[in-house]
């Protein structure tokens, strides 16, 4: 479970987060919507332990991110909006490092990294240095590293922006799988269509405050979790790939 308690954060005189409190229970994908500058990235960076809050607390699985960072981060995954890496490393080397730091069983971590890389269409370039990666590929790698350890709490900051359609579908499937397995996922995005279909509920952030919490019933969402255009695209891709694979 992710709990944010009266989180406040200032940038000089500007109040980016103003006493934000909410929680994301296990097994739920909660969307975070807000205009530019509403405080979404600040909230996620603060929750991930990248910047300290001025006041308030972030609890990841009951561990305070700033008081007990190791225990909290062991349970946490974070897919950054603008991911940064050691650009000299290959994606594979970076994932091996992340797996070692997280104490994952090497065989399982390696197999899972490969499986996810295939799903995200990153596998053919897994052994190339990250400096040659496009923006979308860097985002995929950040996502992959964030979910490699099957985190109990996952923070996604515009995580799927820049993904191609098949990879986005695979990533969303992975998010749903993690949620079914009990992960608490906070998913920030500008793309309301993605949030609409992926999330169980939504928190609207406005000028650093929680303006409203909405459930799926509030926006009249059905059971359909892929958009008509996404389906059409995937059918086309599937048809185009079928002759290639023959």
């Amino acid at each position, binding site marked *: 479970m992710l709990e944010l308690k009266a989180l406040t954060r200032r940038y000089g005189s500007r109040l980016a987060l103003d006493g934000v409190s909410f929680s994301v229970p296990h097994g739920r994908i909660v969307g975070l919507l807000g205009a530019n500058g509403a405080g979404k990235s600040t909230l996620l960076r603060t929750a991930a332990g990248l910047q300290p809050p001025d006041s308030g607390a972030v609890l990841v699985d009951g561990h305070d991110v700033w008081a007990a*960072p190791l225990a909290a981060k062991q349970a946490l995954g974070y897919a950054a909006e603008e991911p*940064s890496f050691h650009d000299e490393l290959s994606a594979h080397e970076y994932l091996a490092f992340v797996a*070692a730091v997280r*104490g994952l069983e090497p*065989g399982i971590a390696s197999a899972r990294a490969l499986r996810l890389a295939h799903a995200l269409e990153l596998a053919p370039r897994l052994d190339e240095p990250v400096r040659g990666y496009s923006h979308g590929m860097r985002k995929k790698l*950040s996502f992959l590293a964030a979910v490699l350890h099957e985190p109990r709490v996952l923070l996604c900051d515009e995580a799927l922006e820049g993904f191609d359609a098949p990879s986005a579908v695979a990533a969303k499937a992975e998010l749903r799988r993690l949620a079914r397995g009990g992960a608490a996922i906070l998913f920030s995005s500008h793309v309301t269509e993605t949030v609409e279909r992926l999330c169980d509920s939504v928190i609207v952030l406005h000028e650093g405050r929680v303006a409203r919490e909405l459930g799926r019933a509030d926006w009249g969402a059905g059971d359909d979790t892929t958009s008509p255009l996404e389906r059409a695209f995937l059918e086309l891709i599937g048809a185009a790939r079928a002759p290639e694979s023959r």
Partner: protein
Amino acid sequence: MPPSTASRTSAFTALRARLLARRAAGMGIRLWIVTLVLAACVGAFTYWQVRVPLDGTLRKGGASAATLRLGVTLAVGVLAAGVIAASRQVTLAAAPPGPEWLALPVEPSRVEQHLAGEAQLPALTVLVPTTAAWLAGVGLLSPFMLLALAAAAAVAFLLVTRIACALAIRVPPVTHAASRRLPAAWRALVSARRPARTARVAAPRFRREPRWRALARLDLVVSLRAGSPRARLNFTALALVLSVAAWFVGVDPREQRAQAFAGFSLACAMLGAWAAWRAAADPPSAVRPLPLTLADSWRARAIPMALLLGVTLALHATVPAVPWFARFGLALSWTLPALLVPLFGLHLGLSLPGKPLAAENLYYGWLGAGVIASLAIPLFGWALLAAGFVQATRRVARWRTPEVA
């Protein structure tokens, strides 16, 4: 209506002025004070280094020989400025700062001029020793001659740095046939932001190991692959080998010992620069969400450095040229630089997470001040470095709060 040439000129002038003002303000009062103190130290050092021999030349060879000597000194300064500007221009051409210039309706010459202006900035550092050298001539040479030298040096500075920048931007080979016809600035910009050519590397082995050792392994891979840290490690290895080899060259034991110590100190200094860079260069969004502690980050760098220097010290202590009791004393006394300098670099790096360039500059600044202080008053540099070490160590906790740092 398209903008006039005059309005573009004023736009670039305003941009340059704003950039300069922001950078000056961004340094902060403390860094300005440190910079001014360092400049004063370098200036004072250069002044005396030039003044004394110039006085000797004046007495032996007369005013014309002294003028020639000062002129050559100033020319060396101007040439050094040209080299700095050219190397900076090469860096800027590879990753030009600012917007996508090619997407803007701006003449190539204007962008080239702007980039050259940016490249000339670091060359201004040469003005400190050059001005000090010129001041050393005051009272020795005639005021008219001094003014003429100053004017010539100023003009030469502008010309040499501008020519160096113009040459540097034309140096990169044209890799694409269609780019050949483009102006130099356009050519540089076209090839600048292309994705780097990448070669596959061997797939790694996933391991179970302590966190600090995983970080140390990552450091090793990054350092062996990246240009800048790799150069520092190579230089360290070379200096360590030379320091041991010094015992087998020459016959005077004192000379051998001095050479070996010089090599060892140089290796320690380069290792400190490597530690400062690596400790500060971990990308925050990739490393911060991981369960790593300050202790992990410290151990990952300190333990490999200690092992490397320990082995070298042991080699020094077993060389046959020194009696056994002297070997023990040697190992003991050399432990000070071996501990102080690399750990100083490491602590500076840890206290400036995400700012490797700042950490390295600060490190070299302290080291330079230490060397100058030791030249002025024997061993005073060590006291200065010890003070820097204490200051950096007190700030190490800032690793936990990168934004505050």
